[in-house]
């Protein structure tokens, strides 16, 4: 079998006595699009933070194309090709949209080449009219787009999206879903989302997190029919 | 043997004076997350308050133990109400503003008292340890430091004020929801921190004399003691004082007082590098 793009083995994160993520074994193939769902506090964001080097796992391992990145720095992981759009837009608020994209693009391109890449990306995320405005002054939805643009500009192999549709209008959600599908033609993605409609638009395979563990992993239709999943989303304690 | 006793007393004295000059700052930092760069000047004002009171005929004990804390405590409350309260949550701006306050106070006292050292002679005389003499006042400073730390422990542990303080320390919003008034708690806290600094400055005045820029001599030492100690006010101040005081005194014996001080500061920088959360960030986490 081919080496998976991303694999975690018994990945665990403790905060004091609290187990935010516990023994998670997760595998993602090259080019795959996976959705991650689960109630608040299920450990999804902590999981993402460990994948990107923002948190060091208590134990267990993260392998990226077979290479152990459990203890790598965030910037090293980014350079290997994992990009992340965080839950709350994490952008350079004091800089213009163009400056934001430029900073990302110039990590992989020469200064001259970067300017061209920036123009392309501005067009792709539809922010040409706002290119010279400060990102901090933009609406929430637009800042989400800026962050997506930033992440795409570093041309990663794997993109992690933490609630990309949160706070978006119905129209924006559809546009985002389209973009996610388009990105998936060339890149692998893991998407955390609560919006079931959005999941339906994009997902094939879904992993469900609950209380820091993987509850179930299945095709999207089966997940949506799964009574266990319905229970945890309705707030009932799953008999796990 | 006599030398050992003498050295032990000196080490204890170094620890006690470090704890004494730091505890006011520790209270303000631990409970309010405010780094008060005018801390050294609060100590200096305590010294002047005691000296002015004694030169007006007051008993030196009353001047040191009552007048100085009250005067500096009142100044602390005024400072909190006029400057600090506008800057909560802006830690760096608070540092800058209190640095400005420090310059202001140095200038003010220079204009009022002149740029010379004034002193009060240490009371209590001296006593003999074998071949060596040492002053009784040294023991007094150790006793005051012990008393202050014990007092803080008692207040934090057993009084309503201490409970409120711990609540506000943990979570200001939670405390507000329970009906505590954080602005008032903050003003009182800052006042108490300032008062203890005033006390420390007064108690140390007979040892070091007082002059407008004496705060500089104190400020770095008290900062690193507080930061080295970490967020827990009492156990942090105590543990960092023990560590740094011992290093300081032993280096002083081995070389000169100046290099004793340098060793202390250098040790502190290394400690902060190793334990960025301070000693109590790693050990004694549940301390007060």
């Amino acid at each position, binding site marked *: 079998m081919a080496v998976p793009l991303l694999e975690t083995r018994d990945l665990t994160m403790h905060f004091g006595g609290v187990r935010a993520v516990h023994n998670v074994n997760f595998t993602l193939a090259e080019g795959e699009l996976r959705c991650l769902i689960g109630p608040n506090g299920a450990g999804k964001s902590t999981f993402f933070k460990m994948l990107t080097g923002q948190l060091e796992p208590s134990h267990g391992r993260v392998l990226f194309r077979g290479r152990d990145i459990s203890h790598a720095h965030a910037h090293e992981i980014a350079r290997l090709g994992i990009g992340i759009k965080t839950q709350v837009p994490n952008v350079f608020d004091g800089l213009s949209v163009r400056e934001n994209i430029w900073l990302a693009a110039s990590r992989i391109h020469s200064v001259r080449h970067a300017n061209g890449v920036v123009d392309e990306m501005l067009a792709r995320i539809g922010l040409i009219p706002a290119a010279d405005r400060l990102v901090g002054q933009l609406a929430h939805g637009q800042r989400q787009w800026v962050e997506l643009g930033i992440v795409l500009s570093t041309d990663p192999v794997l993109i992690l999206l933490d609630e990309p549709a949160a706070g978006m209008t119905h129209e924006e959600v559809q546009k985002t879903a389209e973009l996610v599908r388009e990105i998936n033609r060339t890149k692998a993605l893991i998407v955390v989302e609560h919006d079931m409609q959005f999941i339906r638009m994009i997902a094939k395979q879904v992993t469900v997190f609950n209380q820091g563990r993987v509850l179930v992993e299945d095709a999207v239709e089966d997940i949506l029919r799964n009574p266990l999943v319905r229970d945890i989303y309705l707030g009932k304690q799953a008999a796990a | 043997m006599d030398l050992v006793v003498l050295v032990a007393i000196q080490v204890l004295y170094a620890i006690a004076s470090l704890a004494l000059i730091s505890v006011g700052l520790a209270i303000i930092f631990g409970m309010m997350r405010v780094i008060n760069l005018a801390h050294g000047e609060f100590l200096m004002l305590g010294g002047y308050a005691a000296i002015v009171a004694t030169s007006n005929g007051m008993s030196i004990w009353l001047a040191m133990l009552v007048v100085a804390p009250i005067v500096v405590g009142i100044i602390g409350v005024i400072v909190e109400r006029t400057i600090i309260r506008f800057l909560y949550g802006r830690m760096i701006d608070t540092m800058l503003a209190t640095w400005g306050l420090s310059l202001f106070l140095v200038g003010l006292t220079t*204009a009022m008292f002149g740029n010379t050292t004034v002193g009060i002679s240490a009371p209590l005389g001296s006593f003999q340890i074998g071949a060596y003499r040492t002053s009784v006042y040294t023991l007094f400073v150790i006793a005051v430091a012990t008393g202050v730390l014990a007092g803080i422990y008692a207040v934090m542990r057993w009084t309503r004020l201490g409970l409120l303080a711990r609540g506000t320390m943990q979570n200001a919003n939670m405390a507000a929801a329970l009906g505590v008034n954080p602005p008032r708690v903050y003003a009182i806290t800052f006042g108490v921190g300032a008062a203890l600094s005033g006390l420390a400055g007064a108690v140390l005045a007979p040892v070091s004399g007082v002059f407008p820029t004496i705060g500089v001599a104190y400020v770095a030492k008290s900062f*690193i003691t507080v930061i080295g100690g970490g967020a827990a006010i009492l156990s942090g101040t105590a543990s960092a004082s023990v560590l740094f005081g011992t290093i300081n005194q032993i280096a002083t014996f081995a070389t000169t007082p100046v290099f004793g001080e340098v060793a202390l500061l250098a040790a502190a920088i290394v400690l902060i590098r190793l334990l960025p959360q301070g000693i109590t960030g790693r050990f004694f986490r549940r301390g007060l």
Partner: protein
Amino acid sequence: MNDRALNVIGLALVGVVGAAFLILTPRFAELDAVLELTVFMIMAILALSLALVWGYGGILCFGQSAFFGLGAYTYAIAMFNIGESTGPLLLAIGLPAAFAALLGYFMFYGRISDVYLGVITLTVTLILFNSVNSTAGPEFHIGVARLGGFNGIPGIPPLNIPGNKAAPVDLEGMFYLATASLLATYFGLRWLLASRFGRIIVGIRENERRAELLGYDPRVYKLATFTVGGALAGFAGCLFANWGAFVSPTIFGLAQSAQIIIWVIVGGRGTLIGPIVGCIGIQWLTTALGANQPSGSDWMTNLMANAPFILGIILVAFVLLVPRGLVPTLGDIGHWLLRLRARPAAPSLKPKQAEEG
């Protein structure tokens, strides 16, 4: 008029005013005034070093005077030992830079937070002050240079034309050198900040975590910024030792550190011209206050002539009332006025860039 045009006009303006100042001052000003202006220029270079480190790099350095003092002491000691000034000058830049790199490595790679950075840098400069202050005895010497402790080192030989010991720089020459150095530093920093490196350090200041997640190692960039800042401060220190032919430990003192911070706060973080203006303004003010030092006993007058007192009030007032500093605040007002006038024609004027100045 767009920002790029404004930018070019600004640069040209600084160039023209600077060049005119450089050429005309010695012809029209008294020697005293030239001497005083020289020290203003030197201090402005020091102000620029902190403008880079703090204003653009976001590194809270409360002890920039450590590098300034090291530069001055290094120059003095090397000069007594070597005699020809090229080596001492290079050492006075290189040694503080190396020290900054060492300290920076210790702090940034130790992931020490902002606030503690301030306290550590402050402590470092106090350590230097204490150490140097206590080297008055004859046993403290480096080569033939005595450290002099609290007495300082007097009679430091001036810089000479490179390679020619017999051609020292005179007072007027010092003015030209200091002013030209300031202009070169200003334009050099403008270039640096417009480069890829400069834009990245501003990005890191804005959002360190984001920069990391894009693949930039903030530690490397902060370390480089801090080192450049140390080198610049050391260079200013070298010029300062030249200017007065004297250096003493007060150069490491808290008062000196506070001054540098005040220049940058007053002028504005995130600009270069601001700290220069702040530095020259404050220097002028303290000189004026010192000159008016009354001999009388009236303590109110004493107070008004008291530099720390006035500087303290200025610092508190700026933090509370003008936290962004003069230049950015005036810039905002200017933009606002422009927008008022241009409202019907151009409803969305381009907002201010983070790195104007």
